[in-house]
């Protein structure tokens, strides 16, 4: 088994832990610094639990000033820092370092100001995504990006990953809905990027920071845009007897000149799992369904509903249902939103992928995915943002069966490389993190990766922020390409045995 615990071998292993704790105690109360092994254990992974690493220390600052001083302290000592929100990320972006500090922003969880006239909310990074919309509900406003983890995920994490969600075809990603960031740099300096206005002088640094996976700075405050709640939202459910027909219908709807608020697809396996779980009333004999949400002014929605309904029938839908009331609409969505846990009920483990492809290649990519699924003898369920071409194949496996995790990873890698081959990307919204670092070598050439590293150095010359994630070293890529994808697993993928071994090594 691969046993390479050091995610970033370039970091000096001889960190003076007692000295660091002493210095941090000048900044934070003792109970905000976790250093005993059992206290650190809950922080060993994020939503991608296949990869685990207990950090050197966890710090839990209460405000931006403490974050700034923690960064300053770590900078002076050359200690790497990994930021963490709610750890719902699915790419191992918040995977800790053995010799690094894990900086939890969970305690910075206040909504600082809501401005109804300017339609903005100023929030701390640890505020949950859904909490923003809930706080402004009475103003008939909401925060648009709605990742499926929105009950738990934080806005700081959303900024790090440029999170999307179900409604981003029409309302955009995090980058389209954030006006301003306050950032603590690697050296512990506080800078403001963007403005309360719609643009700011100089480079578009919010665009660069959003989606930078904690590699360029620590976000300590976010000014988000709020949108008016649509007067009406209506959902159509279209059933298909063939996955390709459903996939092609996606392009047909958009070609008809209508941008749905959400356009989601589920395949047969996902439909049945979801139906068993939440009884959404899905047609369980269908090979695929599309959920199409239209929103806007009442009259506009009525006009579009009729057109989209006809289009779906013309594209080969066997049945199109309109949610008759708000409860049925909520139920249609509940099936979609609970599809991941529903699949979790039919398989001991699943591995969620995140490639995006041009919409016209959807049918082809789904077919090829099912061929790969048969080849690797692992079932794949598809539940995804079809309108964006953003696939989420869920690879079903059992980690307790020897070799299955490895096979799931290899299948996942093949799916991602397929996405790149058809003109897409290895990650639409989950980030590269630790997980997809190899596939970055497929998507970018050496000069492009070098440019990423140069940008990283502009913000973090000593490589202390989340080192080893998101952008692979050129040497790493030449090894990956020379060996071929099936001989390498991501650097610290380890099974339970290796984890226990690691614990013993650390004298726990």
């Amino acid at each position, binding site marked *: 088994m691969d046993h390479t615990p050091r995610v970033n071998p370039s970091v000096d292993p001889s960190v003076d832990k007692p000295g660091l704790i002493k210095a941090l105690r000048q900044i934070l109360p003792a109970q905000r610094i976790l250093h005993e092994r059992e206290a650190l254990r809950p922080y060993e992974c994020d939503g991608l639990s296949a990869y685990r690493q207990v950090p050197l220390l966890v710090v839990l600052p209460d405000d931006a000033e403490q974050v700034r001083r923690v960064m300053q302290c770590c900078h002076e000592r050359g200690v790497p820092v990994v930021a963490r929100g709610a750890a719902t990320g699915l790419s191992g972006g918040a995977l800790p370092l053995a010799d690094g500090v894990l900086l939890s922003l969970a305690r910075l969880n206040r909504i600082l100001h809501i*401005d109804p*006239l*300017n*339609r*903005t909310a100023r929030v701390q990074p640890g505020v949950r995504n859904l909490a923003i919309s809930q706080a402004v509900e009475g103003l008939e406003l909401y925060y648009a990006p709605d990742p499926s983890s929105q009950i738990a995920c934080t806005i700081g994490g959303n900024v790090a*990953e440029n999170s999307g969600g179900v409604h*981003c075809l029409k309302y*955009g*990603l995090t*980058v389209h809905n954030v006006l301003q960031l306050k950032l603590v740099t690697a050296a512990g300096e506080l*800078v403001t*990027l963007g*403005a*309360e*206005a*719609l643009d700011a*002088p*100089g480079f*578009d*640094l919010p665009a*660069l920071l*959003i*989606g*930078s996976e904690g*590699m*360029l700075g620590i976000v300590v405050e976010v000014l988000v845009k709020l949108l*008016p*709640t649509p*007067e009406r939202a209506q959902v159509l459910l279209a059933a298909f007897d063939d996955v390709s027909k459903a996939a092609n219908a996606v392009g047909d709807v958009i*070609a008809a*000149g*209508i*941008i749905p608020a959400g356009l989601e697809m589920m395949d047969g396996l996902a439909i049945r799992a979801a139906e068993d779980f939440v009884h959404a009333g899905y047609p369980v004999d269908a090979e695929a369904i599309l959920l199409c949400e239209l929103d*806007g*002014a009442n*009259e*506009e929605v009525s*006009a579009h509903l009729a057109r989209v309904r006809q289009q779906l029938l013309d594209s080969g839908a066997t049945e199109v249902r309109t949610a008759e009331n708000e409860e049925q609409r909520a139920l249609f969505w509940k099936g979609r939103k609970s599809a991941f846990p529903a699949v979790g009920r039919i398989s001991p483990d699943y591995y969620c992928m995140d490639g*995006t492809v041009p*919409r016209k290649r959807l049918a082809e990519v789904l077919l090829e995915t099912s061929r790969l699924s048969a080849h690797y003898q692992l079932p794949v369920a598809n539940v995804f943002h079809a*309108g*964006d071409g*953003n696939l989420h194949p869920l690879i079903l496996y059992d980690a307790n069966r020897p070799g299955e995790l490895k096979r799931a990873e290899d299948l996942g890698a093949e799916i991602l490389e397929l996405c790149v081959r058809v*003109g*897409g*990307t290895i*990650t*639409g919204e989950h980030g*590269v993190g630790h997980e997809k670092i190899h596939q970055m070598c497929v*998507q970018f050439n050496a*000069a*492009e990766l070098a*440019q*990423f590293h140069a*940008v*990283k*150095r*502009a*913000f973090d010359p000593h490589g202390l922020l989340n080192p080893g994630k998101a*952008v692979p070293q050129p040497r790493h890529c030449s090894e990956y390409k020379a060996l071929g994808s099936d001989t390498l697993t991501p650097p610290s993928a380890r099974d339970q045995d290796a984890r226990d071994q690691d614990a013993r090594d650390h004298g726990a």
Partner: protein
Amino acid sequence: MEIAANDISQTLCQSVAEAAGLGRPLQLCGSGSKEFFGRRATGTRLDLTAHRGVINYEPRELVITVRAGTRLAELESLLAAEGQMLAFEPPHFGPSATLGGSAACGLSGPRRPYAGALRDFVLGVTLINGRGERLRFGGEVMKNVAGYDLSRLMVGAMGSLGLLLDVSLKVLPLPETERTLVQACTEEQAIERMNRLAGTPLPLTGAVYDGLQLYLRLSGSEPGVVAAQTRLGGEVLADGSGFWRRVRELEHPFFDSSSANGPDNGRPLWRLSISPGSPPLGLPGRQFIDWGGAQRWLIIEQPGEQPTEQLAERLRAVAVQHGGHAQLFRGGDRNGAVNHPLPGPLMQLHQQLKLAFDPQGIFNPGRLYPEF
């Protein structure tokens, strides 16, 4: 084939590599329609207009990829033929304006607060960095978080980080119908109304105040627009599309005295980008409000009342007070501080980023800030 013949990227890579080797600054030039914008350019002119043509356009995908030298007008008529548009409504400022120039300047029109800015529609770019390397970032898909978003970073960088070869943009369907409603009101009422309405689910796609009247544009399906119109009231403007084109191009009569044909080769035109709900600013001169209150144009007709630098300081202070910045958009001293000065640590980040892309400092030096 035209598309192959108009690819001069190899020559451009060589020119850049050569300039980098000699440490010789380059002035990246499109049609020159936005030469008035930003600080005065220096360096050897490198003409990019020959690198043109549509690389890929698939209306069903809502994506178009075009070479930077492609004319904006050509691009827009191609899209219109398919019932689509650039939703950020870019100003042209000349018949030969190129997409590359628009992207480098990062300018968006009246639809910006409602549909998004140019940067919001950028999906990917191919660029040449200051080492003469051809690099591709982003792509043609709607969502892509692989690597840092260096595509959007190019927008508004005034060519100081890289030479744009091509840009992939998300496009949107043209609205079925549009209508402009006009109503007389005070500045204060206009600002309040623009912002209150923007917080309600109306198909609002433009809101300006010319000093006398508030203009609201509605776009969408016929029944939706009619319903909104009934709710809002006001008179329907006959030539709505002409009005919004003139606002976008700064050809509305308000801007006459600031154009090159105006008095003294044009009075300086200031742009204050502030939070949209900011109350009337109480500054001297005349103002025109666009972007639903977030963009305030200012022309001071009586020059000499106040020394220029003192005036600039005052405008910047007012803009900062309202959460934004002030920019000398057109006219005035183009060698001076036309862009709002950056605080020290932020300027340092800019300079480090500049070095990361263009270590020899050859791309458009001084065009954005005198420091790089």
